[in-house]
Every structure is written in structure tokens, then in C-alpha cells.
């Protein structure tokens, strides 16, 4: 059955289209997890550990229990039974290890670990009582300093599913590096970063009279959370349903089930009532994060700039209990052509929660180091940084030796450079200025895996001609509601208002967690297939109608428009879908279809999205004050379903990349093992005044190996390369190379 969903014109796919969930979001009517009410709702407030490592000797809760309105205080010493096997706690995307269990034991692995939950009649009573709960600890030596722990780094024995370990060495790096005429080697350090979506984690468990639980949760995967909660608490799958209709940002932090979900369900089951648990902003810093990273990159090239040797080593932090892994160094083996490569990656245990995928995990960190190093190599070789990259353009993925399914990166370089005015760049650092400001141009390449995953979707056509499409996908601000509506509307030639998209509910058709930039291509394809199947059914029924004008019509010969099926060349010869339903004596037509990635194609091709990022920085020569007045991100991401929301995806990635380059930094007190800046005032994220002109352009790229939509996904490519482009521009402006991110004023002046 050939999918016909996006072939009709004129349609919505490919056109800038307002978000279909916009009216709800601008009027405050979109409801997030902590905003559902229930009769007799109780409130839970989490008490966090004051120490980073050790054991809880005793929880002292007497004073808290005396507070009016307090119902019960849960802790490791007083809680309902939960699953004993690790397997039950291992969610869909868990890395190898022993998953964290809130209140699992008296052991403390990290500061701000939850140690008690106060449940009370009001939020204020729970909060105030929580402040009265104290604990006595046995404190052991913590480890939070990655620089020190680098010596203890190890190769994780069990590899994380879906994350390729570093490829085996190619050629002879050591010899090639020794013999090369131009070479650099440098260390790059990344501070831990915290996702910090604007919506704090929250879970509202609504307990029905029959004991079944309706769980409103902040998550990127309703079915992941549902299966996890059912396993952890031994509930029949039918007794629990998870809804995440609107998610106030996530960026990866809501891929794994969160402590608020576990604790809210725990309290609800024990108290047999509805419960809401929300985290504080401080507690948001006790979640998974983008890990600390110490990296060394050594590059060598000939006088012509051709890469002769590439070495990339990375050591990343992980938790005491899980081996979180990312593909960090692999990019250095594929982004440019080179015969001699040596790539290595190791973990060091720190007293933190397990890191969690954050926007382009691995690539954001690793490609930063590679692209900063490429800039250093270009400087050493006296070659324009863009030219150096073009000379080393890879036609095949060096790690796998597969051809690319599509790779319009050269267009990104050319069109991005033209839009930016790269040709105005003077080669020497510190050679451009305007008034008191040193001006620098920097660039970097971005790359991210283009993935597709199996997704099932349903399409339902009602008698009034309205169409509903559904799958248990999530829209975390990505625009999923809108692109699915566009695809479905085009399939049936309907206006957008006639299409309802239902996502964010574990009761819907199967969909994995929303992440990895795979949702647009995969959920989009499944909706497209479900619509195509539904059209086949509608046409088959139309053909069978008495005196049907479509009796002999094939799918290629008809058009679906405004609730009718008619011959493509003769709109008068057709039937209304309402009449089709009536003739079939049905209230609605329904089809479900699954999109499955073509494994054979995936085995033959390497698929990535690419970007070229160009940044201008201005640095006050005396004060070191730095700004990024403009940036161009040229992206090759396959077919663009909605240029309006697609552009926003890239803007978002760029802004987070600017945060990485200039602002974001979790600062640990190494004596106490605690994060010092666990709030928005001291953990700096970009604000509106920090953001200059960001010019996003999508280059033409034809992709036909990743599913019939030709889409690659855009949630992550916007961040990769951005920090390097800015850091490289800062070097170009000032002649000073700062390799430790974020690049703050003190480092620039120091």
C-alpha cells in the first residue's frame, strides 16, 4: 500500500503553520501534570538529604507529625512494599546498573536525594511540616570532583542499549601524529549542566473509587511511566493510566520515570486517596543532568589541511549505582575523513544522581571538543576554519564505512557562510574590531543521529467528517500536535480545524519515549500510514455503495477533499464520507497502522542530520564583557514539515547552546559534596537580553531511507556545534583560547 498522505497539494505539510495547541497555551487552558484537581486531594512534599554520601541513621519526624493537617510521613523506614528486583525498576531507557529507588534503603548516594515525603491536607501544611523533619546521618567520604576522579575512570563493563561504544582504532594514530607537520593537542572541560525545564516535576495521582489510578505526570513517555509504575508497585496494567497531555519542557530529563511519580503513587496506594507531589526548583537539581566531562583531543594534519591523525578521549561522570553512557567520542571518527583514529571513553563514579540524556546527549559534549580542536588546528595550519572542514569532508561514515543516506552538509557550509558573511573574516585572531569591541567570527559543524523507531497510530473518521488521529506520543514543546495534524489534514484534504490529535496518554497506541529527535519522522509516518489505511477502507466501502460513481475507481484516481471522495479529475463524481458511513451503517471508520523502520536499509546506510553554525561575538577589550549579536545556523534535516515550528526547534537548541558556551555551570562545594547554585538565580540560563539575532536556514536535503516522510527530526541538531562556534569566535576576537565551558568573564580576563 503506497502511502499517499503527504502527496496532495496544496496542503499544510511544508507550510509555516501555527501550533494547533497555541490557543490553549496562550490562554492558560493547557493543563500540566500538577494542575489537575481531585476530591480530597492530599499534598506531598519531599524532604531531601543534606549530605552527599553515607547512611540515614534516623529520621526525626515527631515535630512534623504534630503539625495540624499532616497525614503521614513516608521514608525508607516506613513505606509500602515495592518490587525487590532491579528489573522492575529498569525503565525503557535505563542504563546498566541498579536503578535508583526512592526510599529504597538507608543509603545516601547523592545530596538532595529524597529521604522522606510529608503528606498533608494542604500544600502549605506539607511544606511547613517538611521543614521540621530532620535526619541524623552517618557521613562517608563523597566524590564529586571529576578532575580528581579521572584517575579512577573505567570502561563500563555493560554497554548501554542503543549507544555505540567507541569504535576500534583505525590505522596508527601514534605514528601518524608523530610524523605530521601540523598538530595540536588540548584538554576541554565541561561543567555539569541541568535541564531545568520551566515546569518543575509534578505528579497528580487521581484515585478512582474502584482503586484504579489515573496518573497525570510530567514525562516524555506515558507508556514508559505506566509500565514502570505497574512493575514497581505490582499493579495490574489495567489499574493504571498515565496522562501527559502537556509537558512544560523536558529536554531529556523526563525520559525516565521521576521520583515525584513514584512517591505520589506510593502515597496514594498507602492512603487510598488522591495525592499530588511536586518538586521544588532546588530538587530539580537532584535529577539526572548532562555530566561533567574531561576531554582530550589531539589532531594532526598535513600542510594542505588534510587530517592525518585524530585522537579523542573523554571521561564522564556517572552515579554510584548506574553506568550512564553517551556516544561522546564517536563523532570524531565520522565527522571528517581520517585514516588514523583512536577514540576512548570512560566513566568515573560521582556522588550524584545518574546523569540523564540532555538535548543531543554525547554529541553536544563531544562535538564541542572536536570542533574547538578543529579550530585550533586551522589556526596552527594557517587555514580558514571553514576551508579546513571542507577539505576534510567525509563521504562515508568512517566508523562504519557506510555511505550516508543523505548528507547536505556542504550546502550548510556554503549557504550558511554566505548568509553570515563569512568571507569578511580576517584570518588572524584579534584582527577585527569596532570601537571598544573586539570582533570575532567563529564556526563549527553540528551532527546528530537521524533515527526512526516503531510507532503505532490510530485514525478515526466520524460521521460528521471529523478526523481524529492518535498515538501515545508526547509534545514537550516540539510541535508534535501540530505536525501530526498537518499530516492527517493533508491525507484527507481537510482543514486543520477538522482534525483532532490525541497524544500524551498511555491508553493510546504504542509509542516509545519521545526523544532522540525521532518523533516527527516516526509518529508522523505512523499517522500517515493509519490515514492511508483508513482511506483504503473508506474507498472500498464507497465502491460498494449502490450506484456508486466510484465503483471502478482506484486510489490513484480519487481525491479526498473536505469530507468527500471524488474522482480526481471530476469533483462532481463522488460521495461524501458521511454517506459512506451511513451506507455501511457505521458511526465511524477506524484503522490502526504501525510504522516499522526498515532494518535492511538501516544496515546499509548511516543517517545523520547536520548543521553549520556561524557566530559573531563582540568582546569589550577592557571589561571583557561579551555578547553574541548574531548567529547563523544552517541545518540539513531532511524534509521540513512545518518551517515555523522547525525554526523554533533550532532556535531552542541554539539558545541552550549559548547557555552552554557562556552561562550554565553546576558548581559543587567539594568539601560538602553539594551543588551550591541549585536555583535559577545562581545557575544562569540565557535570558531574553542575552539573545541576539539567530538566523535559521534549512538547506534542501532529500532523504528517502528513513521512512516515506523523508523527515530527520530537529529537536537536537540545533544545539550541537553552537558552543564551539561561540568559543571559536571568542578566540578569533581576543586571541585567547578558553577551553573550559562556560566561558565567563573571569576566564576571559584571567
Amino acid at each position, binding site marked *: 500500500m503506497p502511502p499517499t498522505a503527504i502527496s496532495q497539494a496544496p496542503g499544510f505539510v511544508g507550510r509555516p503553520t501555527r501550533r494547533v495547541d497555541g490557543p490553549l497555551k496562550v490562554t492558560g487552558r493547557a493543563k500540566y501534570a500538577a494542575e489537575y484537581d481531585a476530591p480530597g486531594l492530599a499534598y506531598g512534599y519531599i524532604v531531601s538529604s543534606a549530605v552527599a554520601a553515607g547512611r540515614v541513621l534516623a529520621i526525626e519526624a515527631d515535630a512534623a507529625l504534630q503539625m495540624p493537617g499532616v497525614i503521614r510521613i513516608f521514608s525508607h523506614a516506613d513505606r509500602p512494599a515495592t518490587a525487590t528486583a532491579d528489573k522492575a525498576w529498569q525503565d525503557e531507557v535505563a542504563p546498566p546498573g541498579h536503578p535508583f529507588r526512592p526510599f529504597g534503603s538507608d543509603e545516601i548516594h547523592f545530596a538532595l536525594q529524597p529521604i522522606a515525603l510529608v503528606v498533608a491536607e494542604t500544600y*502549605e501544611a506539607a511544606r511547613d511540616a517538611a521543614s521540621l523533619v530532620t535526619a541524623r546521618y552517618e557521613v562517608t567520604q563523597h566524590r564529586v570532583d571529576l578532575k580528581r576522579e579521572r584517575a579512577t575512570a573505567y570502561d563500563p563493563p555493560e554497554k548501554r542499549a542503543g549507544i555505540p561504544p567507541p569504535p576500534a582504532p583505525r590505522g596508527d594514530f601514534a605514528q601518524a601524529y608523530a610524523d605530521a607537520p601540523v598538530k595540536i593537542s588540548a584538554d576541554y572541560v565541561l561543567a555539569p549542566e541541568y535541564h531545568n525545564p520551566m515546569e518543575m516535576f509534578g505528579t497528580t495521582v487521581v484515585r478512582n473509587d474502584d482503586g484504579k489510578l489515573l496518573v497525570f505526570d510530567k514525562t516524555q513517555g506515558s507508556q514508559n511511566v505506566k509500565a514502570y509504575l505497574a512493575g514497581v508497585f505490582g499493579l495490574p496494567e489495567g489499574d493504571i493510566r498515565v496522562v501527559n497531555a502537556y509537558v512544560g519542557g523536558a529536554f531529556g530529563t523526563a525520559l525516565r520515570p521521576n521520583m515525584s511519580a513514584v512517591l505520589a503513587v506510593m502515597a496514594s496506594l498507602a492512603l487510598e486517596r488522591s495525592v499530588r507531589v511536586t518538586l521544588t*526548583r532546588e530538587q530539580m537539581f537532584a535529577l539526572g543532568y548532562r555530566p561533567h566531562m574531561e576531554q582530550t583531543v589531539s589532531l594532526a594534519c598535513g600542510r594542505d589541511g588534510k587530517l592525518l591523525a585524530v585522537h579523542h578521549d573523554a571521561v564522564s561522570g556517572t552515579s554510584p549505582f548506574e553506568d550512564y553512557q553517551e556516544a561522546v567520542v564517536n563523532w570524531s571518527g565520522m565527522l571528517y575523513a581520517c585514516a588514523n583514529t583512536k577514540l576512548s571513553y570512560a566513566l568515573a563514579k560521582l556522588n550524584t544522581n545518574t546523569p540523564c540524556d540532555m538535548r543531543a546527549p554525547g554529541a553536544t559534549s563531544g562535538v564541542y571538543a572536536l570542533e574547538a580542536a578543529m579550530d585550533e588546528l586551522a589556526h596552527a595550519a594557517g587555514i580558514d576554519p571553514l576551508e579546513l572542514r571542507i577539505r576534510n569532508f567525509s563521504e562515508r561514515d568512517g566508523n562504519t564505512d557506510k555511505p550516508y543516506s543523505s548528507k547536505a552538509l556542504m550546502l550548510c557550509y556554503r549557504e550558511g557562510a554566505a548568509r553570515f558573511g563569512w568571507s569578511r573574516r580576517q584570518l588572524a585572531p584579534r584582527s577585527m574590531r569596532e570601537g571598544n569591541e573586539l570582533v570575532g567570527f567563529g564556526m563549527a559543524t553540528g551532527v546528530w543521529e537521524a533515527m526512526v523507531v516503531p510507532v503505532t497510530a490510530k485514525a478515526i473518521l466520524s460521521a460528521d467528517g471529523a478526523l481524529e488521529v492518535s498515538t501515545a506520543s508526547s509534545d514537550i514543546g516540539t510541535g508534535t500536535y501540530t505536525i501530526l495534524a498537518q499530516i492527517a489534514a493533508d491525507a484527507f484534504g481537510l482543514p486543520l480545524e477538522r482534525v483532532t490529535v490525541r497524544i500524551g496518554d498511555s491508553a493510546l497506541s504504542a509509542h516509545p519515549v519521545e526523544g532522540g529527535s525521532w518523533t516527527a519522522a516516526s509518529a508522523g509516518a505512523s499517522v500517515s500510514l493509519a490515514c492511508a489505511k483508513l482511506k483504503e477502507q473508506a474507498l472500498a466501502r464507497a465502491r460498494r455503495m449502490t450506484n456508486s460513481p466510484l465503483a471502478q475507481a482506484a486510489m490513484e484516481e480519487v481525491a479526498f477533499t473536505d469530507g468527500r471522495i471524488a474522482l480526481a479529475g471530476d469533483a462532481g463524481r463522488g460521495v461524501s464520507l458521511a454517506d459512506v458511513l451511513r451506507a455501511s451503517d457505521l458511526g465511524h471508520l477506524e484503522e490502526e497502522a504501525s510504522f516499522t523502520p526498515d532494518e535492511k536499509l538501516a544496515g546499509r546506510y548511516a543517517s545523520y542530520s547536520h548543521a553549520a553554525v556561524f557566530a559573531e561575538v563582540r568582546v569589550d577589550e577592557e571589561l571583557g564583557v561579551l555578547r553574541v549579536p548574531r548567529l547563523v545556523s544552517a541545518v540539513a534535516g531532511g524534509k521540513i514539515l512545518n518551517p515555523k515550528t522547525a525554526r523554533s526547534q533550532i532556535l531552542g537548541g541554539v539558545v541552550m547552546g549559548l547557555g552552554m558556551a557562556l552561562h550554565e555551570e553546576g558548581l559543587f562545594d567539594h568539601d560538602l559534596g553539594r551543588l551550591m547554585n541549585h536555583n535559577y538565580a545562581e545557575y544562569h540560563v540565557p535570558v531574553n537580553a542575552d539573545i541576539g539575532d539567530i538566523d535559521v536556514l534549512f538547506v534542501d536535503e532529500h532523504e528517502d531511507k528513513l521512512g516515506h516522510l523523508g523527515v530527520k527530526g530537529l529537536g537536537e541538531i540545533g544545539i550541537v556545534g553552537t558552543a564551539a562556534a561561540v568559543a571559536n569566535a571568542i578566540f578569533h576576537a581576543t586571541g585567547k583560547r578558553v577551553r573550559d565551558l562556560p566561558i565567563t568573564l573571569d576566564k576571559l580576563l584571567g
Partner: protein
Amino acid sequence: MLQRTDASQRGELYRVKLAINGAPHDVEVAPWVTLLDLLREGLGLTGTKKGCDHGQCGACTVLLDGMRVNACLLLAVTCDDRAITTIEGVASLEPTAGGGLHPLQDAFMDHDAFQCGYCTPGQICSAVGLIAEGHAHSRDEVRELMSGNLCRCGAYSNIADAVWQVLRDGTAGEGGR
């Protein structure tokens, strides 16, 4: 004048009269309840968001007698006899755009000035306040004076475009569907 109404075991409750989005509300509230929690938990007005509860992110921005304030930093008892406008009432201030929306609401959709939507009510209320203040005369000043409202999705340039357009033209314009 605040009246103490109850000294029950739940603590003292005070009677507070508020005009919220034009409607009178007569509530009894404990003195430690913030305006934000009263709106969200007490009155079901969940359009006002909680992003930090520390006055650091602006997600809870509402208009208090027309001035933009962080609802998480105000105790409800201090708002007696005051008029509060939340996102649920913004449209009625100036319902000139399509669908009875405020021009800012329309402009936010037109410029795609949000993604997850969680900071959006605060951004819009803040922008209403900003325009009323009359201090912003350029897009750059809009960026500066909207910097108390964080957006982690990174919609800043679209937010600046949307607010500047309404400030300059009074309408959302026709930039897209």
C-alpha cells in the same frame, strides 16, 4: 482591613477580598499562603504557573492593579482589595484580535513565541505590564525589559518579535497562518 476569622487548629485564617479578572472573590486564607498558591490550588486558576517559587523565573507573573508582579513573592493576605489579572483574564483587557484574544496572545501564536507553553502565561502578562509601563521604545528595550521571564525552550527572539510588534503596531500582524 483584614479580618481574622478563625483560630482553628489549622491556623488562623484571614478574610481577603480580591477582584480577579473582574470577578469579586471573597476568600479565607492562611497568612502564609502565596497569591500563586491561592490562584492555582485554591481557586483553580492554573493558568498562572509555578516555575521556581522564588521570584527568579517570572512564570507566575500576574498583574496587580495593572502592575506586573511575581505571584509567588506575594502573600495572598497582602492583596486585600486589590485587582488581579491573570492569563485567564488577559483577553478581556483588549479583546481585539481574532477569537476574542488579546493582541499579544495572537502575536505569540503568530510568531511561535512559545514551545512547551509553560512560561507563556507569565510572558504574556509581563508583556501587558511592559506595554503599560511605557519604558520600551525599541526591540532591544523589549528584550531587556522582558528578561525577568525565563524561557527554557529558547523562544526569546520570537517573544521579542511578538511583543515588539504589538508595542509598535498594536496588532499581531499577518506573519503566518
